[in-house]
Every structure is written in structure tokens, then in C-alpha cells.
């Protein structure tokens, strides 16, 4: 009797469609779990203006996909606020990799996520969310703006569409696998 969990992180700036993507591929409506943070786990600047506040709550949205009778894939959206880096560490620990959602109206909002996974050597793919309408940029322009390594896959997606979310996930797992082979 064994049961294996596989984790995938869905990251991106605020409002890039993370929960929408989780909802489109999850077999259950996304669940929310909360973590209570104490001041000590937050950056020094973050409590400015809220002196006396000793704890804060950060919500995590997640979904699940049953892969087989023994394997379940969990998709965790990163907290909306980029400053909760310590939660990112917990989410990324042992994850297959990450999907970084990109909103072309605010390319820079996804930059911290790209930077985070790049620095830690965690496999990730970028998924440009077309939900917001026609994209004004070419793939090269987006890659340039995000300073993406040429080996990092970029997929176009609509976070509301299940097939699109599936494609982003499959691309990520293939990418993670290719990296395993390179290292071996």
C-alpha cells in the first residue's frame, strides 16, 4: 500500500490567472488552505505601517489530478503577494517544477517568479496567458523581456481552457524529464 504525491507549482505575478489555471485542470474545485505567518518569517519592510500586528495569514489555492491509483498530482498556486518567499520555498521543495504564468500587459509582474526558479535550478515553463486578448508581443520579445534561457519552454495558453492547462503541464513534465537525462 503506497501512495505517491507529485507537486507542481503554478506561479506568476498577481492576477496572471494562477487560480484560473488550477481550476481548469483540477478534478476538484480549487481548495484554499491558510498559513499563519509570524513577523519573524516576513521581510523586515513588510510590517511597516502595521506595527503591533504579529501575525498575518497567507492563502494558498490548490487542486488535484489523480494520475493513477497510486499517484496524485497536486497543483499549488503561489500566494498572490510575491513577498511570501518562505511559502514559495515550501511549495517548491520536491516539486517536479513550475508553470510561470505571464500576463503580456504586465510582463514585469512575472519576472520575480522566473528569477526565483532560475536561481534555484527548478525546472519551469512559461505559459503566456492569452485570456487577456491579442498579444502585442512575439515570442522573442517576451523571451527577451523576461531574460528567458533558450531552453526554457514557452507555451501560449488560455488559463480558462482545460486543454491549454494540460498542455502547459505536459510541457513542464517533459522539460523536467529532459533535464533529468542531461544530469544523468
Amino acid at each position: 500500500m503506497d501512495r505517491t504525491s507529485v507537486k507542481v507549482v503554478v506561479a506568476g505575478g498577481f492576477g496572471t490567472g494562477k487560480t484560473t489555471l488550477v481550476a481548469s485542470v483540477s478534478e476538484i474545485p480549487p481548495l484554499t488552505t491558510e498559513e499563519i505567518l509570524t513577523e519573524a518569517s516576513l521581510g523586515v519592510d513588510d510590517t511597516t505601517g502595521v506595527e503591533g500586528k504579529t501575525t498575518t495569514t497567507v492563502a494558498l489555492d490548490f487542486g488535484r489530478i489523480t494520475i493513477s491509483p497510486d499517484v496524485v498530482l497536486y497543483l499549488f498556486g503561489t500566494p498572490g503577494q510575491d513577498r511570501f518567499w518562505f511559502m514559495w520555498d515550501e511549495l517548491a521543495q520536491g516539486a517536479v517544477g513550475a508553470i510561470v504564468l505571464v500576463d503580456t500587459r504586465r510582463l514585469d509582474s512575472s519576472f520575480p517568479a522566473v528569477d526565483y526558479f532560475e536561481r534555484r535550478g527548478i525546472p519551469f515553463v512559461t505559459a503566456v496567458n492569452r485570456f487577456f486578448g491579442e498579444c502585442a508581443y512575439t515570442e522573442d520579445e517576451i523571451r527577451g523581456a523576461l531574460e528567458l534561457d533558450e531552453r526554457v519552454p514557452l507555451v501560449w495558453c488560455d488559463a480558462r481552457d482545460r486543454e491549454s492547462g494540460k498542455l502547459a503541464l505536459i510541457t513542464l513534465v517533459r522539460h523536467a524529464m529532459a533535464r533529468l537525462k542531461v544530469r544523468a
Partner: protein
Amino acid sequence: MSSETWDGDDESAAGRFVPLYVLVNGRTAPRDSTLDLATQVVALPVDTRRLEPEYLEIVRRCSGWISVAEIGAYLRLPLAIAKVMVDVLVEQGYLAVGTPAQQKIIDKHLLDQVIAGLERL
């Protein structure tokens, strides 16, 4: 507060309104560091009559495999608390643990399975 770990023998008729930090005896991290928020657990067929209601509620949720994150979400427990409580239940033999989502399990065979599973969706 006592630094002893709860041994399951606390028969005192404690009220229902126990602060969460009391329930976990002030522990802030699970003993088993491999317990991840995606790790799944399942109830073992053992006598649960001595469990405190808050712990019993978790065991009841685990009639099928369920992750620590799901337990936290369904029972509205902060993740850190859910993790420690699940860990206590594992330690005392109420729950069995699946393979945690940790670095070492990411092998080619597992990723093959994941891709096949996603393609079937």
C-alpha cells in the same frame, strides 16, 4: 506549558475550546521532516476512542488517502497546525503515510506515469 509530547493518555475532560497551540503542545514543526503539504495519509484500522475530538476529526477525514493540504483546507486548520497534528497521529499509529513529494522521488518512471496520466485527461 509542559514540554512532554502528548502520549494519548490524557483522560481529563478538557473543554472543546482548546487553543490550537495547546493541541499540538506548542510544537511548531513536525518531527518527521519529510511530511510535505502534498504528502498523503490514510487512517489505519485502530481504536480511536481515546482521541481528542480535533484529532478524531482528522482521522475521520482520512478514510481514503488525502493530503495534508486537503486536511487543512477541509478542516480550516492553518497548514503548520495541520502538519503537526497529522505528524502526531502518524507517530501514534493512527495514520499511514504515503511517499512524500520530495526531491528524491522524481525519477523517470514516475514522470512517465504522470505524462501518461495527463494525456488521458
